[in-house]
């Protein structure tokens, strides 16, 4: 076996495209009267936002927490994923008695606009043509994602969020929320993120996009019409991305130079090393659940993100006079969004006299640490939310 194995079965492709239009979650439809104004100048209409909720909204609607998901994740935070059958991506964090306690808080997570799990994106059907949007879908940005979330919350009758939580691209959305709607965000927990995407990160994204577009099955983005999916290119993009989510130390600890099911090298390009086998698995399982064009759009949205640029190049201006309580968290071995980026954010927040906590957590697990079992992160998140709840006067169960 050479390269990424398995062409995803047509049945899986069918399921995936069905999920894009008819998600196995709640959906909010926005008609012609409620277009989504995009940064690129286009009004997107109609569109839909797929979302999940956990816990109950209290009587005065003060216990709502919005989770913003990362690049390749979705709204299925704490339930079985409809395509993979695996547990939700943040069950370790969200649930009864967990830091994001569903007995206390009302948790909302929506699939981002441009995603492929039920919110309108390039994998959705364009109502004007009856065909999949593909590259006809307008370019979206992090502010567009947040604007769509704000419209969803209006629909749900939630004015002010107790907290907006998210890591990586989710953390970018958290920061955009505080910059765009400071009065609607009582507290914010941005994790493993930055106020702008670095040159190195843009470079990695470009590598991923080029891998997708170099796959002949991509067909200029019209692969659905051709009955194909650029799974090889997308898998390579995922493999490259996945390396950036880990760390040298974590890879060494997990795999070292160990061989995969063999004692000696095969003197071929087979996956001799465990680390190769692992990456191939990551690549091939990813393409079963993710749309290649959606990957292009969402990586682009992250690349364009730069809060300071929208405020005369001065980051502190984005947060001037802000009343939101912040807890910024970074991880020592995260080289995708290193601590220095969080520190720059904290300096800007200090300059705005914002109430900010900042913890750097020591771990060798790299960028993905925010998704893993890191007790110190749980303790900090739990205490921060409790403190925010207390300051907001949450009573009874939410107190």
């Amino acid at each position: 076996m050479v390269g990424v194995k398995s062409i995803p079965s047509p049945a899986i492709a069918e399921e995936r495209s069905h999920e894009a239009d008819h998600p196995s979650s709640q959906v909010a439809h926005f008609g012609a009267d409620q277009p989504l104004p995009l940064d690129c100048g286009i009004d997107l209409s109609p569109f839909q936002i797929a979302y999940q909720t956990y816990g109950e909204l209290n009587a005065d609607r003060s216990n709502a927490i919005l989770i913003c998901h990362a690049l390749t994740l979705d709204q299925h935070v704490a339930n079985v994923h409809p395509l993979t059958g695996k547990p939700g991506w943040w069950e370790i964090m969200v649930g009864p008695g967990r830091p994001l306690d569903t007995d206390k808080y009302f948790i909302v997570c929506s699939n981002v606009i441009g995603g492929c799990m039920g919110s309108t994106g390039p994998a959705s059907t364009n109502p004007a043509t009856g065909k999949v949007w593909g590259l006809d879908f307008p370019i979206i940005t992090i502010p567009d994602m947040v604007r769509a979330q704000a419209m969803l919350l209006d629909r749900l009758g939630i004015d002010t969020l107790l907290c907006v939580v998210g890591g990586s691209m989710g953390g970018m959305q958290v920061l955009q929320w505080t910059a765009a709607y400071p009065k609607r965000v009582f507290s914010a927990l941005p994790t493993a993120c930055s106020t702008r995407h670095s040159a190195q990160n843009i470079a990695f994204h470009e590598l991923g996009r080029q891998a997708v577009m170099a796959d002949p099955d991509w067909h200029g983005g019209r692969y659905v019409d051709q009955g194909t999916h650029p799974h090889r290119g997308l898998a390579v993009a995922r493999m490259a991305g996945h390396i950036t989510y880990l760390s040298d130390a974590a890879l060494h600890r997990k795999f070292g130079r160990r061989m995969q099911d063999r004692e000696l090298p095969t003197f071929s390009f087979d996956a001799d090393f465990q680390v190769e086998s692992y990456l191939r698995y990551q690549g091939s399982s990813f393409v079963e659940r993710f749309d290649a064009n959606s990957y292009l759009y969402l990586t682009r949205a992250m690349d364009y993100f730069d809060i300071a640029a929208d405020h005369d190049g001065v980051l502190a201006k984005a947060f001037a006079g802000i009343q939101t309580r912040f807890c910024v968290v970074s991880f020592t071995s995260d080289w995708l969004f290193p601590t220095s980026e969080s520190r720059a954010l904290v300096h800007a927040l200090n300059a705005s006299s914002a109430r900010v906590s900042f913890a750097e957590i020591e771990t060798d697990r790299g960028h993905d640490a925010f998704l893993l079992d890191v007790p110190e992160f749980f303790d900090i998140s739990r205490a921060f939310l409790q403190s925010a709840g207390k300051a907001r006067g949450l009573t009874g169960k939410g107190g």
Partner: protein
Amino acid sequence: MSVQEVLPLNGLATEPSGHYRADHLLVAEMVRPGSKVLDVGCGDGDLLQLLESRGIDGRGIELSREGVNRCVAKGLAVVQGDADTDLVNYPDDAFDYVILSQTLQATRQPRVVLENLLRIGQRAIVSFPNFGYWKMRLQLLIGGHMPRTENLPATWYDTANIHFCTIKDFVQLCDEIHVKMERAEALDLYGRPLRLRLPWWVWNLFGEQGVFLLSRGGRK
């Protein structure tokens, strides 16, 4: 020989301190309720918790990652930072009070730090171990070695404290940079104030630490 044997300290603080340190209670008493406070070198956040329990909006800076994470896990607004390098990031008049508790002697540039405290805050509250304390003097004079006390047990080669001073030295620095001393207290070994209005030289000899409430614009 203890402080009590040397001085007729009728005014010594006797109120029970509960689970708070006596010097923290003194600092908290200097802060007007409802004000906004930055605690530089806030350690595990004990003082911040005391202040927040009194309705004060408290923030902290702490050098050690462990200290910061413990504070954040208590729900306190604390960031990792260094008094020498990170105070410049705060705007003028951002706080009513900036507290520097037992940290001045560990900074590289105490004078610059002090100036920054009074730029960021309307007032500063500074406490530090007094190197003029009689036990310190005695150890150097009789023992011939660098002093170590119950509160400063580190040896000279692994102490973080690089700029020790006496109460007298500190008063001199305040005069030099035109800082007004609104209130001064000398504390005994247990952090209790020597309440009596004693001359500076007595405080300099019998105070284990000094606590000063400072504001801008002193003599000259």
